[in-house]
Structures are given as structure tokens and as C-alpha cells.
């Protein structure tokens, strides 16, 4: 963790940044055993999102892992919520979504603004070094979203990567107790250092917690209060030589409900 900041301020103006966060928003984070949970996909800023209908053509994987078993999240195209799943409620379940890549072009100024907002300074530096600052931002973006559904018992599966190209993996099950969020940022299964990771609190868009991953990819976010949190990060790499785009970006998100602190025992 190279830096840590807690700011109660409005996030940077979204108009400048054309990019949008993407996350999973289930109908409930605390379903009763056997209940049906609808799984909404959201795109937006500051943890305020618009519904994203399901579109199979854009889905590379959409599944839930509970009790060590993985199954597809089913749903109908063009419909929000994008999927449905019955939860057994025995242990914390992990919903994961991976998109196929989508191409976007941004004017140079907007592209650089967006890179700055998402902490992609190395990309800015790389473009500057190559004299590309006035070049269109040609990018293919991939979305990797996860959400944790609280179960009766903690799940060790939550602490294991689900195999997304870019993902935030908790060190322990964060749905169990109110504590700082500790985890790792993995890119293709390997720790990624110096990645900007941001935590946003649902319903309070001004609450913005930031950190960078350390050389082992580890992050710690001292979440100040319970609630539904979106923890997110973006990683960008130069595209392969034959690609039509110049950059590939990987958008990782994790939505989780952090429980209330346990009441202190009085002597």
C-alpha cells in the first residue's frame, strides 16, 4: 500500500471521464436460504448506475460459485435483471461476470482525462514517451465484476480467484465481520503492483476511499462504516501488434455488503 486517502468529497467530474464503472447489484446481499436472487448489472459513476440488460453476445462468462460448485447465472437477453439464481444460503456465494471486449475511441483530451481519473499514469507516460498524446484513444475494454452474497457461514472460496483476467480477491470473507478490507489485485492470476483501487459506499457517493496495491498486489482499505461497498480497479496494457486497438483495459469490481460492527461487550 503506497498511499491511502479517505476523502469525503465529490468525485472528479464525470463529464470529463467518458469511462464508466461496471458492477453487479443483486436484489439482496442477504437472501434467505433457498431464495431466488435476481442479479442486476449496472453501469455508471459514483456507485450510481443504470441497469444493463443481459446481452449474451457480450457475455464471456456469468456464473455463481457456492458450496464449491459453479453454475451459470441464467437470464433472458434484453431483460434487466440480467440473471437469476437460487441461493442455498449455506455459505457466502460469489457471482462473477466477464464481458467480451468492446471497442471504443475517445478524443485525445478525454482519453487522457479518463486515464488520470482511473490512476493509469503509466499509460499517460507511455503515450507521452511515444509522442501519442494527440492521438485518439483507441481501446478495447473488458469488464470483470464480482459480487458476494452473504450466507450463513463464511466461504473459503471467496478468497480464491474465480479466474477472471483482472480481479480483486479478498484475503478473508468480508461479509462476516466489520473490518478493514484486505485483499489482492490479480492480473491473469498474478499479483499486480501499484494498481489504484477505489472503494465507494452505496448511497453516499461522496465517500471515496483509495489505495494502491503493493508489490505483492496486496491492498488494505479501512472501510469506515458498514454498508454495500463497491471496490474497483482498472488496469490497462498496450494491445498486441496486430490488434485494431492501441490499448486493452480491464475493469475489475467487487460489490459486497460489509456487516455492522459487533457490539462491544461491557465488563
Amino acid at each position, binding site marked *: 500500500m503506497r498511499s491511502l486517502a479517505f476523502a469525503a468529497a465529490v468525485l472528479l467530474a464525470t463529464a470529463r471521464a467518458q469511462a464508466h464503472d461496471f458492477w453487479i447489484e443483486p436484489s439482496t446481499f442477504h437472501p434467505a*436460504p*433457498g*431464495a431466488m436472487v435476481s442479479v442486476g448489472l449496472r453501469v455508471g459513476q459514483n456507485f450510481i448506475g443504470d441497469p444493463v440488460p443481459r446481452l449474451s453476445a457480450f457475455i464471456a462468462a456469468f456464473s455463481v460459485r457456492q458450496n464449491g460448485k459453479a453454475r451459470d447465472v*441464467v437470464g*433472458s437477453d434484453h431483460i434487466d435483471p440480467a440473471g437469476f439464481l437460487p441461493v442455498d444460503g449455506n455459505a457466502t456465494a460469489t457471482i462473477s461476470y466477464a464481458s467480451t471486449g468492446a471497442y471504443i475511441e475517445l478524443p485525445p483530451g478525454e482519453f487522457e482525462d479518463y486515464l488520470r481519473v482511473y490512476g493509469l499514469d503509466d499509460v499517460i507516460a507511455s503515450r507521452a514517451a511515444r509522442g501519442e498524446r494527440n492521438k485518439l484513444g483507441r481501446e478495447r475494454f473488458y469488464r470483470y465484476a464480482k459480487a458476494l452474497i452473504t450466507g450463513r457461514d463464511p466461504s473459503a472460496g471467496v478468497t480464491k480467484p474465480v479466474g477472471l483476467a483482472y480481479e480483486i480477491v479478498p484475503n478473508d470473507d468480508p461479509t462476516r465481520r466489520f473490518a478493514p478490507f484486505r485483499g489482492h489485485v490479480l492480473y491473469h492470476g498474478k499479483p499486480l503492483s501499484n494498481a489504484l483501487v477505489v472503494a465507494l459506499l452505496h448511497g453516499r457517493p461522496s465517500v471515496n476511499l483509495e489505495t494502491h496495491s503493493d508489490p505483492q498486489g496486496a491492498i488494505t482499505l479501512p472501510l469506515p462504516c458498514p454498508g454495500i461497498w463497491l471496490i474497483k480497479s482498472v488496469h490497462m496494457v498496450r494491445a498486441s501488434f496486430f490488434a485494431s486497438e492501441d490499448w486493452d483495459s480491464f475493469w475489475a469490481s467487487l460489490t459486497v455488503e460489509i456487516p455492522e460492527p459487533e457490539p462491544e461487550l461491557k465488563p
Partner: protein
Amino acid sequence: MKRRARWAISAVTMLVSLFLAPIGAFASDHADPTDLTDPNANITDLFFFPKGDQYILIFNVRRALTASQPYDLAPYEYRVNFDLTTPTTFDSAEDRARYGGTITTPDRLHPDATITVRLNNNTTLKSITVNGLKNTEKIRTYTGVRDDPFIFPRFFKVNVIAMVMSLPKDAFPVGQHDFMLWGTASKDGAQLDHVGRSIRTQLPRFGIINTTPPGDQLKTLMENKESRDKLYNFFKGNREWYSKVVADLIQPTFQIRKYDLVPDVMIYTDRFPAGYPNGRLLTDDVVAQTCAFGDCLLQEISYIEGGWPRATTNDRPFLDDWPYLAEPWPERPEPAAPTRSILPYIIGIVLAFALVSWAIIELLRRLIIWLWLKARAKPQAA
């Protein structure tokens, strides 16, 4: 390519089965597919509402009845199940509007109490077995032919076989506010039909749960949703217009909708006034109410088959007192069953297809032989 071909074959297979499966079932609670072939098992209605210190339970079977006795009722067992303990909440306006409430643990639905009725062929009560309720000696029962109370033109001027029960409120546990109930019809131990909230299992997409206990229905619905969604997504995702047309045919009729993932039980709570979908009153225009929340098939049929304006009350007045259902319509012969069969047409089409296929293959075979002989002959000539 092979994968695509496999997909296409499985999609066509699924499509055919999807369209054929509901044919038997299309018609329900009044017209469950299962029971068009076994009308005595065909449940038509379930009503539940309070009346003074009683709850009135009405369970009807045998759609479109006009024939005279005797009927063939003895082999059938009709049962109403009460789940009095599975938690129900009423916070969701959407669930309350559609289903009367929210069942938080749908896989735990189970009968805490049951009332099992058997009838003689003359509609008199053969036996009634009550489990899980108290003061059962105070239960009042009526069985017989009555007017069909369903407010729907197709079933005007016809009767049903009615089982009416008046259950004292003290038959239930003290402080019982919430009830979930469903009815079943069985023969030789096999369940043939199911009814919960009105106008669910009569819809084509729900024929699959007619023989499934409520606790398992969500699983069944999910399994079917998965396969039907895949089918819809496949056809919708192709660029050809006719593929999209197939998808658009599947969506309204067969696809399991986002608000369908709920077991089919009737919810009644005394926290709110009685009336569909909080239980069901005889006077409830359930067709219109169900349409208001997303299922309009019967509403459309009521316009197609009925007059103007659409009937919103029953074709005969209900009684203010026992047994509440309207007097029966006079007996008359039931319409003769069709004598024509579709089988000769199917056989003819299959034979014609086979013949054409054989002719094409034979032509190709002869062409290949002819080409081969010609090819062999050329070098010899040279």
C-alpha cells in the same frame, strides 16, 4: 462448425418439444394440459376468504360440466394443503400485487395441514380426512354440482363439481395470520393437477409445475427458464429476421419471466382485506387483475370469445349464504367430441417427406453411379 451444427440441432429439438409440450396442457386450471385428457382431475378454482368466525374454502373440479350424473369421480383424490409456518413477508409491493406476499424460503414450503376429499360418482361426499387442524368436527362441508364461478366467457353457462368447506377459525393455531394453500388432484397416487394462485398453472408456460410439489417448483421453473432462455437468446441473437420472429413467438408464450420465479401457492393474510391475490373472493375478476400485472392471455381471450363490454361479474349471482356458489345450470348433453383425427394428416406428411427424400437420394445415387461409370469409361476410350 460442428459445435454450431450441434447447437442448431439441439435448438430445433428444444423448439419442437417446447411447442408440442403445452398442447396437452394449454387450456389448465380450467384447462391444464394434463387434464384435458382427464377432466375429472382438472381443478378449476380455489377460493379462500374469511366469513365471520369461519374461513370459506371452495375447491372446484371438472371444467365445462353440463352432463348429468353419474360421473367418474370415485378414483380421484382431491386435497387442499395448508402451509402455516413457512415465513411470508409483505414488504414488496410487486409481490403483494402479483402473489399476495413474498415467500422468503420457497424451497421449504410444506403442508402443515391437509384436507383430503373423495367423492362418490353422484358427487356426494365419500370421505373427508383432515390432518393438522383442530375442532374438525365443526367443519361444514358441501359437495355437488354448482355454476362455474370463474368470471370468463368460455365458462359461462356451465357447471363444475364443487367442494365447499367452512373451517372454523379456531381450527387453525391461535394467532395464525398467514396462510399458504394449494390444491391437488390425484389418481392412483399420482398427482395430475395443481392449483395455487389463480391463473398460473393454466398459462402455457406453467404446465410443467402441475405435477410438482410447491417446495420443488422453483427448481423446476429455474431449469425450464434456463433451457427456454437459451433457446430464446439463440434465435434472438441471429441476424435473420425469421429467427427473430421465432424468438418473439417464444417470449410471450413459453419463456419463464423474471416475475415467474415463485412457487404457485395462494397466499392469504388477515393483515389486509381479503381479495385476490390475498386469498380469493368469488366476486374477484381475477382475469383483469392478473392482466394488470403482466399476464393478459385470458383477458384477450375474454374479449375474443365474449361480448362487449367485457363481463366483469359472474353469469349467475352468487349466494350470500351457504354454499355461496351460484345455482347450477340445467343439465344438457355435452358437446360431442370431435371425430376427426389429425393422425392421418401427420402420417401422410411423414410419408410424403420420406418419399421425396427417398426420390432425391435415389436420384443422387443414380447420378453418382452414372458419373462414375462415365469417368471410368473415358480413359478406356483414350
